[in-house]
């Protein structure tokens, strides 16, 4: 018999740990592949279609439960809505791939507008001084009132939607799915992901939820129906 501790001298931590696990699984008489795939039976598709009125309504009510602002408009109404949501903000930052009409609206009423990456990346310090950020999103989940960002061109890098105190995120109705599993299927591990459910919050003092700690203290979700 070879003693593990004696062998450990020549083995890397990696090899030792892997050997320990194999020995432990042998000791517990466990062999691989204990799982029968896909017999879990939990809901993997909602009863409502992606982007349907029912899903959109559920999403709106769940976002509102988080003390976030939630606003509905059609495609043509987005610029006017953005302008009204930005009235208290003097300096606005947007990702380079944000739709042109939205960008124009963000720059209206004499607001200073910075576009990340055009011509250059904004420094963290400068980003921290911005009042608001406007982004799109990759997907949204109705049941949990969640918006998912994947750092696409119309969303920008992660710091962009983190440092300004006011985040306005636009969600197209057809991006909204009912359930978490439906969203997971839309997302890719190739991109950094941020799931956002309401504004920054903490439950650390007596388990009471308080909105607004380190992330944006104000979250406005703009839901775009049709066109």
């Amino acid at each position, binding site marked *: *018999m*070879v*003693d*593990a501790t004696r*062998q450990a001298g020549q*083995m890397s*931590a*990696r090899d*030792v*740990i892997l050997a*320990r*696990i*194999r*020995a*432990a*699984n042998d000791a*517990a008489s*466990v*062999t*691989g592949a*204990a*799982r029968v795939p896909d017999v*879990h*039976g*939990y809901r*993997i598709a909602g009863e409502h279609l992606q982007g349907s009125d029912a899903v959109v309504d559920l999403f709106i009510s769940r976002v509102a439960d988080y003390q976030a602002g939630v606003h509905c408009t059609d495609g043509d109404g987005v610029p006017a809505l953005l302008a009204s949501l930005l009235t208290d903000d003097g300096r606005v930052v947007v990702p380079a791939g944000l739709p042109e009409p939205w960008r124009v609206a963000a720059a209206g009423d004499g607001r200073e507008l910075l576009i990340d990456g055009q011509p250059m990346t904004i420094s*963290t310090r400068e980003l*921290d001084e911005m009042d608001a950020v406007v982004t799109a999103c990759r997907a949204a989940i109705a*049941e*949990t009132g969640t918006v998912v960002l994947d750092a696409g061109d119309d969303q920008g*890098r*992660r*710091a962009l939607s983190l440092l300004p105190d006011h985040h306005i995120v636009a969600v197209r109705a057809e991006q909204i799915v009912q359930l*978490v599993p439906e*969203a*997971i299927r839309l997302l890719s*591990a*190739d991109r*950094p*992901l*941020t*799931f*956002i*459910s*309401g504004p*920054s*919050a*903490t*439950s*650390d*003092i*007596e*388990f*009471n*939820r*308080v909105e*607004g*700690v*380190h*992330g944006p203290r104000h979250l406005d979700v703009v839901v775009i129906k049709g066109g």
Partner: protein
Amino acid sequence: MTGVFVGMPGESVAYGTGNLQGSRSFPEAAGVALRDAQLRSNLSRATATIRAKRAAAVAELPDWERLREAASAIKTDAMSRLPELLEQLEAAVRARGGNVHWARDAVEANRIVTDLVVAKGARSVVKVKSMATQEIGLNESLLAAGIEPTETDLAELIVQLGHDFPSHIVVPAIHRNRAEIRELFVREIPGAPIGLSDEPRELAMTARAHLRELFLTARVAVSGANFAVAETGTVGVVESEGNGRMCLTLPETLITVMGIEKVLPSWRDLEVFLQVLPRSATGERMNPYTSMWSGVSPGDGPTEFHLVLLDNGRTATLADPAGRAALHCIRCSACLNVCPVYERTGGNAYGSIYPGPIGAILSPQLTGVRNKHDPNASLPFASTLCGACYDVCPVKIDIPTILVHLRAKSVDAGRRRPDSEALAFRVMAWVMSSPGRFSRAERLLRLARIFSRGGRIRRLPGPGAAWTMSRDLAAPPKETFREWWTRHGRPVR
């Protein structure tokens, strides 16, 4: 499979070290905690709040039980294929530009992290709340190397500023109420507003102002991980405040310390854990922020990523067929919040940073128990076996059964030299096997009435003292049932 043979199980078992046990047994520590009226009131209020929230969030899902089944099955599968999955995870993280390190125990993990920070020339790090780094005592190690760690989660900051010990897995400062936190902030945070009130909102704003500059200037961040997907190399952190996003996004170097049991086989497994974890932990449909990253992303976030895979007693736990399910834990704390024992004693009585029912089965398995005087030997007995923990566990860990299993193990370990308890039970068996002996014993028992007051015995002398240490004994009645029966005769039909 590898050809390496590691000897007999038991001989090769390597236990964990770090903040996994206290200096006193649970009954001793609990005795102190139970006399703290403020602590009991803070705990009872906070756990009642979260119990109601969790129950409502769970009741909303028609497939909750199916999700629990799935979570349990995924974890059982992951543990059975752990070597392959960890190798797959390592390869996937490396393929996406990350680095992977392996740590046998707390000392090795601390050395790896400290060396990485030193190599970056940083004198400070910002930290995301992490049980793994609490477990290994990373902050103490960094301080010893002249590196200043700052906890950025509000509750962890409260614990750090108060030179306190975390008493809950999700809300480490649950033992502190708003007035105590206000006092701490005024004393410890330079520039805290003079007229600071104890409103949670104001306290949170004080933390925001205090930490913002640190987030903007930190060069190295240290985090834990809620899960890592073997298939894709994706690591995830679930949080509320945005301090996690700050740490995971702004510094140029990110170091993540993760227990080896946190690995999930496939991308789709996320859909289960992203549903069960938030509802179980804070009673929310979804926590405010969840971040997921795979290695490094050019132009977005850290340029250097290190993943440290930690054993520290996990493989020892895995070797016990009945106890290994403790490793399925996703650190949601639902079992703490429903536990009648935890609610009264608080987390610090458990000695380990893993308190409550899950701590009672996890801590002694991670550290091993040398003998019955080992503080962790008392943990499996810190339960009424009421089963509430099993009912709420999102991964269906049968905590009561593992508690009983660990109790049996500790009794078996002491079998060679019978103690007073074993002796007492043997005498009892002899007495109860004869009607005459039993009747004489009953009459003898009546003598114990001299120790009673108001119908209760608070303290027995001699070896009986162990029984009355943590419970009162009802005084034996003046007359036994047999005597009453004889006096009244048989009932007339």
